[in-house]
């Protein structure tokens, strides 16, 4: 994904607008976003997934880890030999797949959001410090990020999990660390380009302190590319977390994490298609939705693309 999204020069808002009040930046972005059908669909899907995640406790028909010993590996209800109580069938120990998928949405969404928030906060601080103070601080931080980028993200995450030990929290921490360089680089690039703008110099003369300069004055002008990267980061966090779960290093059974579910279902590849198909489909749809929205946001926020 592009960490080279060039930092937006604060868009000189509608200089050439001949008539009428210029639309507010938010409004304008929304209009662009809405014209992109893919992004719109992505947003709707994300809304549905969010709804399912937030209401999982009440919506899911069964407890996701309750085992029904009378119904092992029952197919979905439209198949022969189905158990009418379980819409999408059951897994090898008689757990309702639909309920597990809905609770899985809760897990995946929280993984994605938590990882991105964690990584973004740390990344912004590091990138801001590097870009604001320059000098050896910058060289040190950026070199470290280069080194982290020399390793493929999943392998880096595996290495960190290998140190911390398997488990959901550790996997999330590992993915957050892996994503860090993207935010650091983006923030630093934006800050460096903002630093020479007159508003920064003006408030410096007015006596603004370093912290105020960095986080009150400069940061808001660097947010557009970060928001795009964050959205795309959610999708890769969900994907990586599922991969770690699948390898047995992420969420541990019986947690209904989608990747972990697939890992447990692997042995039924020849006999029970539903235990494999549905969790993967959920991952694909969720990741796709966030990618679509990220792409749409990028197009809407990137001033170069406008007009």
């Amino acid at each position: 994904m592009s960490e080279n999204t060039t930092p937006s020069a604060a868009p000189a808002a509608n200089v050439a607008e001949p008539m009428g009040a210029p639309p507010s930046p938010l409004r304008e972005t929304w209009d662009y976003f809405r014209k992109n059908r893919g992004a719109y669909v992505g947003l709707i899907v994300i809304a549905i997934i969010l709804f399912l995640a937030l209401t999982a406790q009440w919506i899911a028909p069964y407890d996701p880890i309750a085992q029904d010993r009378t119904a092992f590996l029952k197919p979905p209800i439209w198949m022969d030999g189905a158990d009418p109580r379980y819409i999408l069938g059951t897994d090898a120990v008689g757990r309702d797949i639909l309920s597990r998928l809905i609770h899985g949405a809760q897990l995946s969404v929280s993984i994605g959001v938590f990882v991105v928030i964690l990584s973004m906060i740390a990344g912004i601080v590091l990138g801001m410090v590097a870009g604001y103070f320059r000098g050896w601080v910058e060289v040190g931080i950026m070199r470290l990020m280069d080194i982290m980028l020399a390793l493929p993200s999943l392998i880096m995450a595996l290495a960190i999990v290998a140190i911390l030990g398997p488990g959901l929290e550790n996997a999330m921490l590992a993915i957050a660390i892996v994503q860090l360089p993207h935010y650091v680089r983006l923030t630093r690039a934006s800050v460096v380009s903002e630093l020479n703008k007159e508003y920064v110099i003006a408030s410096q003369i007015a006596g603004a302190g370093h912290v105020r300069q960095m986080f009150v004055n400069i940061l808001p002008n660097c947010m557009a590319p970060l928001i795009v990267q964050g959205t795309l980061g959610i999708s890769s966090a969900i994907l990586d977390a599922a991969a770690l779960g699948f390898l047995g290093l992420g969420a541990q059974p019986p947690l209904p994490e989608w990747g972990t579910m697939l890992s447990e279902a692997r042995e039924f590849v020849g006999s029970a298609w539903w235990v494999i198909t549905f969790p993967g489909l959920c991952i694909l749809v969720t990741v796709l939705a966030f990618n679509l929205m990220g792409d749409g946001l990028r197009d809407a926020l990137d001033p170069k693309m406008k007009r």
Partner: protein
Amino acid sequence: MLGFLFRRLGDIIPTFFGVTLLVFFLIRLIPGDPILMLAGERGVDAARYAELQAQYGFDQPIIVQYFDYLMGVFQGDLGKSFVTKKPVLDEFLVLFPATVELGLTGILFAVCFGVPFGVLAAINRGKWIDHLTMSVSLTGYSMPIFWWALLLIMFFSTTLGWTPVSGRLSVMYYIEPTTGFMLIDTLLSDEKGAFISALRHMILPTIALGTIPMAVIARMTRSSMLEVLGEEYIRVARAKGLSPLRVIMVHALRNALIPVITVIGLQVGVLLAGAILTETIFSWPGIGKWIIEAMNRRDYPTIQGGILMIAFLVMGVNLIVDLLYGVVNPRIRHKR
């Protein structure tokens, strides 16, 4: 050109040391005493403990330890596996060809489908083939490949019975490894049908591994092609009375592929990460599966060595891609 090479090497050296440092401290960060962990549940007495500590150099100051480690790396010594007691580098080299073979077929698949479809989408912009290519590409890009591999197995292996489920070769054959590349080894051998068997074993892992790079390459080719097609020299080429095919294949593609080559180079990391998942699912005896097994067994020297080698590999390939970029792009080649 030489200056360009040296400049790139200059960029890489700090990263090289950084990676060794990172990998070195990886082990030190593990909670718990590595020697006690090595000894397992049997435990060790104090004398044996001291002996082991000296053997692994854990009694030295950390700077000395790192220096020793670095010296070892330069001499090709990545330590010995806790489990098999064999040198890590030897194990790596035995398994490496299998991963390379899979990686090469994967990237070949990705390029062979990604580039043509990207071109087709670009020249048919806004038509159904463009929408189809872009939808497939976006889906492929978002695909969890471990699931995709399982789907492929489910459909082609267990339902249709067209391809084998796992491994590199049917157990009917035994091939003495000469190059380590199964496709070449089977061709060289006298065993009839071994090559076909090896080929059939390759198909699904190749598709599983190549899908994400294919999606990325198709997208990149399309956007790069669209940009080039708007250039004046394309119009000039058409004004020469060249056939549309020649304009696209000779004038547009050559220029459009320049950024695509960089993207192909960047896929090496994606491929290696994908190899971990693909090899695990297809029981493919390569370094991906090896590292995962090492992680499950907490075989730290192997994890450490494996990660270091992968990092070197990615850095090396990126360097090669940069140089290749200079070859295809005259503007870079001539820059002093």
